[in-house]
């Protein structure tokens, strides 16, 4: 099924794009991450211009996180208070990300920065996740439970001025901490076309020390709004959002997300996390190799 993408200026096989969306949707439903970390590189690999890929992937993440966010909202799994601060930070972050995107584009280093960011982020987070889930699985086998982790925020967070109470998260911390975290994920969303869930969730747990039952819901809430802001930002600055591409991805990802959510209910969380860690590490490794090996194309063309 040939579909012409009017912004990417390119004809693609529509079914391949839908399948790609379904794959990332499946991951997002299973693991509660946006799945954008897979969409953007795969689209680029398929021949879609990098800017169009990053801009259109954001709207796919919006779609995939909507139903999840609704589900969490219904069972009270969102701390709107801290979520609002995160979103505010995220919107500022996308603005900064847009400026950075332009600057790096002008310097010709946007691809390299995106690749290096992917390798560092995915490698780091994937490694941590793998370590943690293997430890959990070992503990299950031996029957000795892991020592319970003390839930508390990072000492740096405590040193920030001004303190607010966030009741649902069970926190009394400076709003600057979630604001900065929001800004960081906003920048990453703009640059990498990802939702930032896989960075946000661990950061909420281990840096902010939020209570576990609101972490995933609040992260989805933040991702939802920040990817919306990203889509708007791309529509206004790079003008690279391809609506046809986005709709194809959405068709796949919203269905995939639902199927993935069903899977997730049946599987053990430790297994799921190990699987996700494996996929994340694999993508990171592929990208690291891509940086080191001689690329297929030495030259690249950018319109002046």
């Amino acid at each position, binding site marked *: 099924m*040939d*579909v*012409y993408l*009017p*912004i990417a*200026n*390119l*004809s693609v096989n529509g079914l391949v794009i839908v399948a790609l969306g379904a794959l990332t949707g499946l991951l997002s439903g299973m693991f509660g991450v946006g799945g954008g970390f897979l969409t953007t590189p795969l689209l680029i690999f398929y021949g879609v211009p990098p800017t169009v890929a990053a801009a259109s992937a954001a*709207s*796919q993440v*919006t*779609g*995939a*996180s*909507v*139903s999840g966010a*609704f*589900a969490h909202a219904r069972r009270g799994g969102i701390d709107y208070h801290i979520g609002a601060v995160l979103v505010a930070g995220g919107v500022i972050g996308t603005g900064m990300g847009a400026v950075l995107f332009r600057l790096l584009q002008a310097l*010709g*280093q946007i*691809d*390299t920065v995106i690749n*290096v960011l992917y390798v560092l982020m995915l490698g780091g987070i994937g490694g941590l996740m793998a370590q943690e889930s293997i430890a959990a699985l070992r503990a299950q086998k031996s029957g000795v439970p892991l020592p319970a982790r003390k839930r508390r925020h990072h000492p740096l967070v405590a040193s920030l001025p001004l303190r607010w109470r966030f009741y649902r998260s069970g926190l009394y911390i400076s709003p600057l901490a979630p604001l900065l975290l929001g800004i960081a994920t906003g920048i990453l969303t703009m640059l990498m076309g990802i939702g930032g869930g896989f960075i946000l969730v661990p950061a909420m747990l281990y840096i902010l020390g939020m209570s576990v039952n609101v972490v995933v819901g609040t992260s989805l809430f933040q991702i939802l709004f920040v990817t*919306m802001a990203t*889509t*708007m*930002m*791309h*529509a*206004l600055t790079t*003008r690279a*959002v391809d*609506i*046809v591409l*986005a*709709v194809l991805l*959405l*068709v796949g990802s*919203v*269905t995939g*997300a*639902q199927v993935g959510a069903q899977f997730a209910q049946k599987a053990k969380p430790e297994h799921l996390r190990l699987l996700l860690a494996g996929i994340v590490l694999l993508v990171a490794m592929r990208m690291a190799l891509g*940086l*080191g*090996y*001689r*690329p297929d*194309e*030495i*030259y*690249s*063309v*950018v*319109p*002046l």
Partner: protein
Amino acid sequence: MSAAAPRWRTGAGRVLALLCCILLLGARDPILVPEISQHEVQVRQGFTGADLLLFGAILTPEGNRAAQDYDIVVVLEGPVQSIVLREKQKIAGMWINADSLEFRSVPSYFAVASSRPIAEIVDDKTAAIYELGLKWLQLSPIGVIEPKEQARFSAGLVDLMRRQGLYREEEGGVKMSGQVLYQARISLPSSVQTGTYTAETFAISKGKVVASEITRVEVRKVGFERFVAVQADQNGWFYGLFAVLVSVAMGWLAGRLFALV
């Protein structure tokens, strides 16, 4: 452009030319009548590229059969654009963009078809003047650059575009029949830029371009594709808002539908 016959424009020259014609019958410049299978290529949903048939006839000024072997070269060129060409180099173990060069006039599409290999038809000088072949593309780099470096970048660009199917060279792509008719098939990939394409046909005899004619093809987005491209370019707010609404609605709808299952 009638590149081959500038000298008979003056009155005296014309008389002289006429005399020559009578004296040396058959040595006069022929007339080229080129045509294209379609003058408009519509880029719409399902567009996977287009096949253009460039055909025509060579006649004597009286409209008779030329009765002589000519070589025909057809050059199809897309709209030119200014670009930056970046070159990756291995720095600290990573392949990153290091060097770059700006070009002022890079055709977004360039195809040459000829009845025989170009090198057998004309000498290098003529080929360079008329840009007959990818080797002779005039890309106009900006700034002062070493010739060696310029050649390296130009070769890199041509190689890249060729592998993307945007630059083509088809020696033997022009078929002649009965010393009168010629035809060449040139295909446009789906990734072509929109704009005005010019098809220039050259009739060449004994290494000299004796006649040339230009025809034009318009490549444009139509219908929905055009609407989307225009909205994305001019109505960023509306377009972005629409994209956001669509993604939220689809996510929500899927959630609802699966709740029923």
